[in-house]
């Protein structure tokens, strides 16, 4: 029996309607027809409506005088400014709130995410309660709370709270000292940037050398020893001065310097850990001794001092075990060196060329504060709300990212003999970042978009200035909405472009 060959010869004739390609074309044409028709209908309606209202379209309104006030602006603003300047001012305010919010949200979020994974039950619970509370309450409600219930309930200007460092808090926001750098200070700033780059370059070079030869080069070790001594001296000096708050004789510079020199001397002997432990204990003691009386005003100071001392001693004890007995050698990363380069050199330059960084402290005049930098309550409430809210989400991303690294990696790192810190830094974090960064970027994007809620509490950001005031005054609904949306669309597209680039860079290369 002959096998009928189905595969050769012309394809069987079927109706054109059953051809998937033809159907696809038909469907798409249909959809295009519908969408174009719908859009056309909208355009016709809009044109008709605009004609009825006697309105014109076009972007020429951008070059007309705005004539309204903006409470808080990064660019010079007056009533005579033009609408495009209002657009710019709003955009800059949005970006300012977003950048500062991102900064704080990242710090709080990472701390909380790690705290939630902590083996310490109490800390893990506190972090969980924070996250579960904050992320289940609408951001707008939180903003209202911060603005109307907290900042608007602050005392009037006359009875402002005075915080340390000349910061005042009152009904009109937060007044902070304004830095007034003089001409020479520019050089110090330049030196800081250069030193920062240099420190990074030195670190990279030293690590490469170590990867190649197994030890840090002799020049690095030698300068690290010097840097170590200098940093020890500086920290010891600060510690003695701080201790001087309790034992006044130590606060004199000569005594503190002598004590710090002794510490430097000890740091070259095998008793080295005691130096670090001493400094850490003193600093911990003074900081807690300063904070506790402020937190518990009803508890007798002697008890608080005892608690602070106990905390200081515990910190010292912990440091005692963490710091190696041997002085800086070729096998350890010279931490003190970059610190000295980044902080020390600009500081030395500061005194050498006689630069001056004055601070203009806000002063209470008859009705309001003069001078200083005045942060309006709208801005403070927005940054507060955005950071606290987004931090809860970032914490969850961080936790998820760290948990995504399999436990085998931890075990493998331990079996290589890595210490806890190195294990986290070299094995866990790099792998966790791969998981953390994409959702983190979208949280940053969310924060930027959510900064538009500032409109609800009167912060002069893009939606408020442009979609609110400008639109109300000019009535150019289509142009204003299109411009505003274009801004957010651009930010979003840039973010997703970055994300794609990052994902491509860190993607696992699989076999």
């Amino acid at each position, binding site marked *: 029996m002959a096998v009928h060959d189905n595969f050769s010869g012309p394809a069987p004739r079927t109706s054109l309607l059953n051809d998937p390609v033809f159907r696809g074309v038909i469907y798409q044409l249909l959809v295009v027809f519908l*969408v174009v028709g719908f859009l056309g209908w909208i355009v016709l309606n809009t044109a008709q409506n605009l004609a009825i209202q006697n309105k014109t379209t076009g972007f020429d309104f951008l070059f007309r005088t705005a004539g309204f006030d903006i409470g808080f602006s990064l660019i010079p603003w007056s009533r005579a400014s033009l609408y495009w300047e209002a657009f710019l001012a709003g955009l800059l305010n949005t970006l300012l709130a977003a950048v500062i919010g991102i900064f704080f949200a990242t710090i709080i979020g990472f701390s909380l995410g790690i705290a939630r994974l902590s083996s310490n039950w109490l800390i893990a619970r506190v972090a969980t309660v924070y996250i579960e509370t904050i992320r289940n309450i609408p951001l707008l409600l939180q903003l209202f*709370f911060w603005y109307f219930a907290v900042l608007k309930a602050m005392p009037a200007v006359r009875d402002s709270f005075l915080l340390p460092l000349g910061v005042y808090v009152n009904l009109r926001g937060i007044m902070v000292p304004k830095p007034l750098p003089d001409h020479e200070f520019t050089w110090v700033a330049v030196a800081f940037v250069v030193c920062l780059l240099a420190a990074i370059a030195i670190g990279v070079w030293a690590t490469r050398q170590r990867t190649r030869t197994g030890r840090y080069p002799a020049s690095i070790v030698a300068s690290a020893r010097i840097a170590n001594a200098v940093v020890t001296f500086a920290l010891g000096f600060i510690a003695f001065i701080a201790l001087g708050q309790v034992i006044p004789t130590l606060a004199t510079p000569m005594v503190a310097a002598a004590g710090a020199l002794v510490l430097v001397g000890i740091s070259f002997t095998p008793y080295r850990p005691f130096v670090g432990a001493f400094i850490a204990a003193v600093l911990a003691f003074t900081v807690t001794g300063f904070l506790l009386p402020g937190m518990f005003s009803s508890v007798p100071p002697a008890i608080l001092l005892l608690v602070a001392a106990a905390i200081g001693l515990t910190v010292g004890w912990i440091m005692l075990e963490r710091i190696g007995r041997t002085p800086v050698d070729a096998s350890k990363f010279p931490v003190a060196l970059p610190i000295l380069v980044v902080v020390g050199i600009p500081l030395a330059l500061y005194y050498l060329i006689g630069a001056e960084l004055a601070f203009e402290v806000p002063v209470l005049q008859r009705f309001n504060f003069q001078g200083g930098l005045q942060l309006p309550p709208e801005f403070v409430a927005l940054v507060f709300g955005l950071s606290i809210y987004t931090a809860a989400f970032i914490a969850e991303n961080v936790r998820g990212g760290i948990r995504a690294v399999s436990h085998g990696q931890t075990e493998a790192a331990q079996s290589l003999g890595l210490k806890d810190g190195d294990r986290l830094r070299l094995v866990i974090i790099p792998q966790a970042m791969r998981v953390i960064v994409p959702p983190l970027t979208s949280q940053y994007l969310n924060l930027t978009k959510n900064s538009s809620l500032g409109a609800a509490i009167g912060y002069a950001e893009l939606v408020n200035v442009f979609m609110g005031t400008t639109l109300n005054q000019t009535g150019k609904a289509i142009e204003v909405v299109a411009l505003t949306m274009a801004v957010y669309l651009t930010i979003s597209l840039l973010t997703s472009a970055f994300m794609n680039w990052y994902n491509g860079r860190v993607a696992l290369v699989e076999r």
Partner: protein
Amino acid sequence: MAMDFGYVRKDFVPAKAAPGRTGGPILWAQKNLFSTPANTLITVIGLLFLAWAVPPIYNFLLGHAVMPGGTVEECRLEGAGACWAYIHARFNFFIYGFYPIEEYWRPNIVFVLLAALIIPLLTPSAPFKRINALLFFIVFPIVSFYLLNGGVFGLRYVPTEQWGGLMVTLIISLVGIICSFPIGVLLALGRQSKLPIIKTLCVMFIELWRAVPLISVLFMASIMLPLFMPAGTSVDKLLRALVGVTLFTSAYLAEVVRGGLQALPRGQYEAAASLGLGYWKRMYFVVLPQALKHVIPGIVNSFIALFKDTSLVSIVGIFDLLNTVQAASSDIDWASPTQAVTGYVFAAFVFWIFCFAMSRYSLWMERRLDTGHKR
């Protein structure tokens, strides 16, 4: 005779003493709170923080609070905590807004219907899922609309301007999820489609809405929607907000559903095609049931986000829960230093209850659906 290795032990290790404790709170504390010096330090700092933060919060919420039945004079006393009496007095306003008092039974029936339909729908073991879903997604919204709006069957007409409070918050979030769900599924399918024009249109639609903040969408809906309609049509304010919320949510839902579609093995698509099913049958009978099951937690999460986002409609002048609280906080009869804070705490608590319950549900569902087939 075995070789003598320097690193091989020759004698037995002496037995360790039995551990002093094998359980109990002290061992637990040793393990979880005081295992290392650093841990102890963190515990102490944590306890200090709690000792600082918890008593004032407790005193505000309960200790010094004025309970329902109290008077405004008590709330005005120095050092008084939350003024719960104020919440009690304005409770109906927070739930129903300006809805006429004699018509409260209508929203009440809607609340009861909602509970009666949604609880069996969310319980996986409850029977009649199909009928239940049909009732909830199609019959319930229509019945609720006529019940709340009135104007038919001799019911008094209540314009949407009088709706408010928690009622409106629930309406917006439910309408948002019910309307955006089919749109979201269609968009997700369109984005996965092989037809280039349909795919491009869907991608553009999704990315546009996801890129802009909801508040600008609401502004746009409340300003532009009347412009887009034929001249002379007036669009209800609540409806404008609903359109904005629906479009916005559908874009987010589309991305969630796309995750489910992508997680489905290719073989399922191919198997369905090899059965000779057409596109829609393939999707309806094979692909979507599996894909949607995977993303139930994701859908619940976007519902949580939507529920929180409904508070934004207060910016375009709709009296949702947050806006009623905000409006009531300038009520002179109850003016006291803690009035505003109490209102916010109440609203936060209501939102929190709903969102927390939903997030627990989503976690529970995730665990239930996790059939242990992970690699």
